[in-house]
């Protein structure tokens, strides 16, 4: 898949996990991996970018004697999800068109 598309998808994927509730690194990897395999070296830059864009905030909470970073979605993040969904309406329309055109081609 095109790298830019995948990035956008991953970002929105992570954000929609956060819609269900705040999460932390390890848990996020497991949640996202259920959809598409992801490693920490992929997840980390995504989280970094989302924070820089103001789509999520980070806070620390003590867990078993150590500090754990939790991520929470922001209003900006929710808007980002809506934007992603809107973009993909176009993708779906184009896909349907191409699929249709290809079907006609093979039937000739």
């Amino acid at each position, binding site marked *: 898949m095109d790298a830019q598309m995948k990035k956008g998808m991953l970002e929105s994927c992570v954000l929609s996990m956060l819609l269900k509730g705040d999460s932390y690194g390890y848990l996020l990897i497991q949640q996202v991996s259920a959809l598409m395999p992801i490693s920490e*070296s992929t997840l980390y830059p995504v989280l970094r970018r989302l924070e820089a*864009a103001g789509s999520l*905030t980070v806070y620390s909470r003590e867990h078993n004697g*150590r500090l754990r970073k939790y991520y929470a979605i922001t209003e900006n993040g929710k808007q980002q999800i809506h934007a992603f969904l809107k973009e993909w309406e176009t993708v779906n329309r184009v896909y349907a068109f191409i699929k249709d055109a290809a079907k006609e081609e093979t039937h000739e």
Partner: protein
Amino acid sequence: MNKEAYLNELKNALRHLSLQEQQAALSFCEEMLADRMEAGMTEEEAVAAMESPALMAEKLALDIKQPPRDAQSNPAVNQTQTDAENPNQWQKMQLKCAAAQLNHIDLQAGNLPIKIQLSKDDQVTLTYFTRPRNVYEARQEGDTLLLREIRTENSRSFFNFFFNFDLGTLPRPEITLEVPADLMANLKAATKNGAIALSGPQMLMHVELSTTNGGLALQNTKCISLDAHTTNGGVAASLVECRTALSLRTTNGGVAVSDCHSQAALTLSTTNGGVTVTNCTARDEMRVSSTNGGLKVQGLDAGALHLRTSNSSISGTVQGPQSQWQIESFTTNGKNSLPAFQQGAKPFSAHTTNSPIRITFS
């Protein structure tokens, strides 16, 4: 490979990055390893489950070369309008006032971050931004400098969503207020999705800073009173001095405060987050509290000291000798280095649950 060796290799692989970036990436991976071990893996297994440090460093380097999403134009969204027509294009504005005439500054910023810093001259300069769909206006009314958003199209109506949508792909501008160090005025700054930074002024009067989604960063400031709060965001303060109440509050976020002093009360509180307080004093009451987060203190002194949290430890040092404090401490399921009760002159209480209290007196 064991955990320490892995983290050292990672630190080496990241050496080209800024210290801040290195620290952040390291703590992310450290957490990942700790969580894996908590899930039942041995140290070796947890390290084996991680990717090579070289790969992490490579992906981070790629990402840093490409600036964060914020500053990049998303090709999927066509901006067919010219800049002049583009309702999303910010226009920079500036308003200058003489400092001597100002007694009040009142900024309400909507979704933009606010930065307050020292000016290079003796004027007050407000640099802000406006655009057709978020019209900001700054004006001086008598002795008050005001910034208001007088028109916003961030409403959620169907029309606005689909036709005026702003992905935030354009860089978000920052409102900057530059003041002379000796400006004597009340300052009120509020924003929703944005951080607030304050640094420099020494003679402010009553300062109130509030944001919803964004951090607070305060340093090297003196004022009469300070009340700064955020909901989702951390609070960092150093070298802040108040003649009366100093209060820093957040809900989801940590609080890190050092070398701050109040000649009255000092209040630091968070709900979901730890608090780290170093070398802070208050003449009257100092109250440090969290609901789900550890309290780490160092060198605290006050007329009365109260430390409160639950399910997390309270640890660190308090200005001694121990005998000057009237101590009342309480925890469940945890070691407590303090006596439950001790007579003394200055009240000091430390309460938590399910965690140790490790306070010593220096």
